[in-house]
């Protein structure tokens, strides 16, 4: 049978991600979309480890490690070096977690977006500092357990609206993606590759140890995040938004929350508030 996504494999087995890691499926698809003429810039995040300890590498493309706060600045330099060498084909992609994107590296990518740097910035968002042991980040959903929000009511602040922050920079392209929708995700990386200027893809990446669920459920949770309206799939070009998936009827958010141990202590009131929040935001999406 012909595969529905490119067969070429740039992710290598033997990497040291946790069992069922969503961020490795995400990287597989990103590289299927971008192809071998790609250079990755990775700040401190889970992928710092997954990339492999030298001299081993888990990806078949060059990968540069950068300090936490400097991924987009590093990528700016890599891109400029390629231009100086006359290489206008190789794509430079930042591959950063939510800690680096929402918090520590925000000013660097904001600057790169403002300068209109010709780079692709992908944030694989597992909604906390997972690599250092599950500390709350600016992406952690309200009510979630983390090591730094251990007691009820969990994380007390809502996550930052990264889509709104990115779109306020008027990037050349913005999209959301998640591994359950493989074809959609690969297509978005292919599309981003062909666009010039600052491009940003926000990838929701389920994390078995951080979200506390069985590793086999990574893809189903990725799917439920979209089907419940918690993580809408959309893309923005020329400041025009297009919803990619419009479920006729949203599933109850409880289907997404229930399998995850990080939401175990939510009260019925908190669960209702999450449902209402999704419905309120969905009305704006569906309009």
């Amino acid at each position, binding site marked *: *049978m012909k*595969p529905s996504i490119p067969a070429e494999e740039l992710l290598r*087995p*033997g990497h040291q991600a946790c069992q069922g890691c969503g961020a490795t*499926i995400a990287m597989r698809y990103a590289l299927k979309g971008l192809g071998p003429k790609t250079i990755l810039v990775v700040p401190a995040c889970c992928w710092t480890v997954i990339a492999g300890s030298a*001299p*081993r590498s888990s990806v078949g493309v060059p990968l540069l490690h950068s300090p936490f706060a400097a991924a987009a600045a590093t990528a700016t330099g890599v891109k400029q070096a390629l231009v100086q060498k006359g290489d206008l084909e190789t794509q430079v992609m930042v591959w950063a977690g939510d800690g680096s994107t929402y918090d520590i590296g925000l000013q660097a990518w904001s600057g790169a977006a403002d300068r209109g740097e010709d780079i692709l910035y992908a944030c694989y968002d597992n909604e906390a500092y997972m690599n250092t042991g599950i500390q709350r980040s600016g992406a952690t959903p309200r009510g979630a357990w983390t090591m730094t929000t251990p007691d009820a009511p969990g994380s007390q602040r809502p996550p930052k609206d990264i889509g709104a922050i990115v779109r306020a920079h008027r990037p050349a392209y913005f999209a959301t993606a998640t591994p359950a929708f*493989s074809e959609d995700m690969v297509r978005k990386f292919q599309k981003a590759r062909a666009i010039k200027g600052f491009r940003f893809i926000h990838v929701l990446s389920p994390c078995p140890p951080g979200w506390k669920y069985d590793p*086999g459920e990574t893809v189903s949770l990725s799917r439920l995040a979209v089907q419940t309206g918690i993580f809408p799939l959309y893309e923005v070009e020329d400041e025009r938004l297009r919803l990619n998936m419009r479920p006729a009827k949203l599933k109850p958010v409880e289907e997404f929350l229930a399998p995850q141990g990080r939401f175990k202590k939510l009260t019925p009131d908190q669960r209702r508030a999450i449902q209402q929040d999704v419905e309120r935001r969905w009305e704006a999406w569906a309009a």
Partner: protein
Amino acid sequence: MRRVEATDALPVQLVGDQPTSENRTGDWRSQRPVIDAARCTGCLICWKYCPEACVTRTDKVPVILMDYCKGCAICAAECPRDCVAMQPEEAA
């Protein structure tokens, strides 16, 4: 533009590019996926969703490379025909 040359003070050295495939992560596994070849339609969904990229495409029934499979069970959960069974590994 001034070029930076390698010197003793500033060695320019390429990091090696040995694949991580040298790591046999299969020994993390406590359960192994077994595909029921009689019912498998070769739809490649297990290949598509594997976080290890260790499912090999064939003309029909995919082959899972047990040297790398960590036993996450995503293939078993996602198989539309429900024909991947997770079996406990024998204690070593």
